[in-house]
């Protein structure tokens, strides 16, 4: 069959996956990404000073590296001791997975800005490192970044990668990150996606975990029109410990897809995945959670849960857990639930004078805030995250 290439495919030089590619079954990239648009121009320095104004900092003591419309800006924030930053664009993520690696491939074609960050051996960095990307979101514009992070042996560090925008015009943003957590290093990597409702945001986080590494990932999706956040993790060292948690707030007209692939390659590793999702209006949510346990990876303990609150009949959520287990002595469990708000809970709250909107808000908030609490990220950050959730709930339910 000879398929006519779309404008996007002409620009990229490769075909985009349709629903027939299994990993894109719920997110038809070919149908949704007809054209790519143009690289956004470098904004005036003055203009960038106010671009993030409606997005206050999440961690007051953070050292933030700034990107505006896909361009890096030097703000001379003081780097914490033991943290090295290079402003050179890191190498593209490897894309040997064929169509499954479509997002890294797209990112490699459209990215001109990025940083490489190295956390020195044994350093305990207490300041949060921010990777902030603010978007003007002009119609048919592209703004993309690529980061490479190495947390050396025995180091401790925390990162917040953030997308910020208010544009409802059709625009594209992208992020590709490679994160290398070396032996005994402890990393928290938080992704806060608050792109405008016109954004197509395509993102990939690739991780390798060495022996005794400890990684906590949090994905908060609170924006965008078409979002796909992929997280691919190779657990390569024994006793590595991994938690991936997420809150997906899927608004009316939005399509938000989180796809995780966990490869347990060695014995004695733990992984816990927990996602809580809220779908409003006719939003579509997707969670694909693949866990691969290789034959040598005995004593793997992998738990995965994905719970969704559907607020309307129009919205939907597709959850696809996928276990590929070749070791015999493992504990793997997964569960997915989709519920709506409990009428009895609503009645009880209303019977106390709480109006419907507030009651719903309290119940939804209770449902997702539990994930934030589990992060144990400290009061300031937890409040910042629940604040973003509150703002989203105020605007969307």
């Amino acid at each position, binding site marked *: 069959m000879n398929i006519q290439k779309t404008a996007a495919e002409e620009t990229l030089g490769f075909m985009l996956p349709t629903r027939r590619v299994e990993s894109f079954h719920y997110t038809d990239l070919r149908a949704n990404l007809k054209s790519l648009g143009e690289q956004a121009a470098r904004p005036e320095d003055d203009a960038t000073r106010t671009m993030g104004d409606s997005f206050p900092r999440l961690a007051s003591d953070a050292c933030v590296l700034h990107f505006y419309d896909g361009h890096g800006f030097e703000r001379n924030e003081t780097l914490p001791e033991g943290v090295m930053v290079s402003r050179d664009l890191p190498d593209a993520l490897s894309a040997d997975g064929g169509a499954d690696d479509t997002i890294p491939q797209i990112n490699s074609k459209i990215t001109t800005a990025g940083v490489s960050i190295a956390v020195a051996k044994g350093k305990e960095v207490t300041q949060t490192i921010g990777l902030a990307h603010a978007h003007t979101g002009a119609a048919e514009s592209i703004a993309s970044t690529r980061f490479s992070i190495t947390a050396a042996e025995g180091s401790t560090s925390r990162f917040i990668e953030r997308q910020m925008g208010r544009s409802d015009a059709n625009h594209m943003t992208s992020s590709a990150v490679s994160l290398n957590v070396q032996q005994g290093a402890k990393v928290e990597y938080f992704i806060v996606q608050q792109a405008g409702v016109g954004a197509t945001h395509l993102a990939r986080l690739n991780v390798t975990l060495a022996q005794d590494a400890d990684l906590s990932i949090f994905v908060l999706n609170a924006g965008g029109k078409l979002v796909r956040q992929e997280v691919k993790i190779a657990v390569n060292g024994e006793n590595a410990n991994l938690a991936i948690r997420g809150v997906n707030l899927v608004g009316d007209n939005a399509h938000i897809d989180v796809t995780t692939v966990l490869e347990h390659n060695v014995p004695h590793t733990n992984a816990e995945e927990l996602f809580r999702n809220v779908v409003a209006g006719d939003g579509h949510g997707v969670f694909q959670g693949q866990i691969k346990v290789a034959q040598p990876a005995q004593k793997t303990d992998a738990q995965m849960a994905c719970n969704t609150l559907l607020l309307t009949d129009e919205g939907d959520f597709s959850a696809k857990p996928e276990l590929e287990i070749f070791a015999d002595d493992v504990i793997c469990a997964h569960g997915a639930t989709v519920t709506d708000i409990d009428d*009895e809970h609503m*009645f009880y709250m209303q*019977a106390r004078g709480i109006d*419907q909107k507030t009651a719903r808000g*309290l119940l939804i908030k*209770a449902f997702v805030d539990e994930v934030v609490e589990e992060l144990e990220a400290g009061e300031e950050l937890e409040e910042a995250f629940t604040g973003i959730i509150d703002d989203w709930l105020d605007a969307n339910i």
Partner: protein
Amino acid sequence: MLEIKNLHVRIAEEETEIIKGLDLSVAAGEVAAIMGPNGSGKSTLSYVLAGKEDYEVTEGDILFNGESILEMEPDERAASGVFLAFQYPMEIPGVPTMNFLKAAMNAQRKARDEEEYTTPEFIKTVKAAAGELNIDFNMLKRALNVGFSGGEKKRAEILQMQLLEPKLCVLDETDSGLDIDALKIVSDGVNRLRDPERAFLVITHYQRLLEHIVPDSVHVLYQGRIIESGDKSLALHLEENGYADVIARAA
């Protein structure tokens, strides 16, 4: 204060009628007890007063201070002063009791165009009320009713009633699951709230509660109707003789 006229109620989406022509008046300051065998419609009546949407009023009316409340949402009824202490209070995971209390108290204040509580005011008020009801303040930091014992749930209901200062208090089997001490604490709580401007509808199976909360009137609900009304001696009569002869008289 409360006037129920020829009320007919069925379960929405089903044909079965549960309340079948119920008449009842309760004046301001009055404590009216409703007694009746299991399944006679007592909880249904309390839910209909609070505005639960599972029940459909097919005939009759409920007037509260002279105005029909049938078209009002549950939260509007609560704001206008109707309070239901649930027979089975809901457990609400993830919502700390204090947050819930604050939302409820401020929602009602807002609906009545009153100033919202400041946080210190709010905490002080709750602490004082909790103390009177022998409720451990730490319990209120936990999710609402989650893991509370039966007695704790009932006391938490009375705490809410005290904090929300309603005009019409409906207590649905608040005595069930309470030991003697807890019954005393709860009854004292209710008695403290007795007021010429406030009416109570106390639903119970047992005379025991009515020894503590002495009613002005007693009504027997059977098969969706009030079949006999009297003063507190009627409750004593039921305690001694059961419902059989009252039912026989009504037939």
